[in-house]
């Protein structure tokens, strides 16, 4: 009797099951994107994973209310970006408090060594740091566009869909971002040569 009831219960597919399955699909296809968006802001693997994880937890909580589930990726990108910026600000405040501490120097060295040892970053450390610094100086809108265009080979249409803006807006933002980056990097190079 119990076996039969269990079998019957197992054959039912509830609304929650369907939602959970749908969310699992979204999670698999968007996890790397969320992680990379967070990484582009934080440049720390652990921090980026934490933020992406929290973003997914938040997304899960509101997943049922999301009317257009096809736009989940766009929604997740914006959510992760905002959360990563919040984390970055919090990190900066914490670092500012501990600025005189030797621990920071050690942690910085460790992080750099770790990043080198994983071999994720192809460009040299100095060059990458320069580029990251230049990206950080960009306004938020330009920064997000250049980062998204650099992730997973997104083209203009895909970036536009992720940001929910017209293609032309993405084009102009990309143009401005590249221009400002070039200027910033050449200024950095000139300064280095002068020193």
């Amino acid at each position, binding site marked *: 009797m119990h076996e039969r009831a269990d079998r019957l219960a197992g054959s039912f597919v509830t609304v929650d099951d369907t939602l959970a399955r749908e969310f699992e699909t979204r999670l698999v296809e968007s*996890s790397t994107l969320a992680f990379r968006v967070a990484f582009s802001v934080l440049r720390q693997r652990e921090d980026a994973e934490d933020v992406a994880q929290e973003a*997914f937890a938040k997304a899960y*909580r509101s997943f049922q209310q999301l009317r257009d589930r096809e736009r989940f990726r766009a929604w997740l990108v914006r959510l992760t970006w905002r959360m990563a910026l919040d984390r970055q600000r919090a990190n900066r405040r914490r670092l500012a408090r501990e600025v005189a501490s030797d621990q920071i120097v050690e942690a910085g060295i460790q992080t750099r060594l770790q990043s080198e040892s994983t071999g994720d970053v*192809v460009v040299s450390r100095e060059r990458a740091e320069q580029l990251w610094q230049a990206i950080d100086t960009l306004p938020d809108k330009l920064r997000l566009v250049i980062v998204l265009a*650099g992730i997973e080979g997104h083209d203009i249409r895909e970036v536009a869909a992720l940001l929910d803006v017209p293609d032309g807006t993405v084009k102009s933002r990309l143009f401005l971002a590249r221009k400002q980056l070039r200027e910033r990097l050449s200024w950095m190079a000139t300064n280095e040569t002068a020193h």
Partner: protein
Amino acid sequence: MDGHERNGALTDSSLDREIASMLAVEPSPEFLARVRTRVAADPEPSRWRAAWMVATAGAVAMVIVAVMVWPSGESVPSNDATVPRTQVAGAVEPVTPPPSSPAPERLRTQRTAAKVVAVAASPDRGIDIDLPDVVIAENEVRTFASLVTSIRQSRFDVAVPAAPNPDTPLEIKELPPVEPLEIEPIVRVAALQAEGVRP
């Protein structure tokens, strides 16, 4: 540096390549598992929220129904109730103003004299509503009384004249024949006199 041009200039494509390579970072293998655990540990807010919304909607509906059903303290007399004739007769009192009194005085008297009394739906339940005075002219009261009398005695024909049928063709009467209009020639007297011609 691959993407960086030798002369220091940085092209768009090289810049994009550099950024792409910097962002080609994979999350740790246990990242997905950690996210799944985190999501599974999260309480199911959807179910809770749905229950909360249903409860709120129910409460709001109950409040609306309660407000609509709640007795308002004043009962309204029903229109279809039959009223005794004596009450109808007493409801409207004709005013006979004194002929010698001046006009403003007359109006004031009319206001105080003719007061409409609310008629109860049933004889045993009277409602005393303080209505404003209604002035009804004597001739109107007389006309109304005569109308009621004539209806009672079946002397009044209440039949409404039949409206013209829109389907029936209109009868067009022939117009009288047009007579030619003769206009006499205009004679310019002054001009003729100047020329020495007598009109």
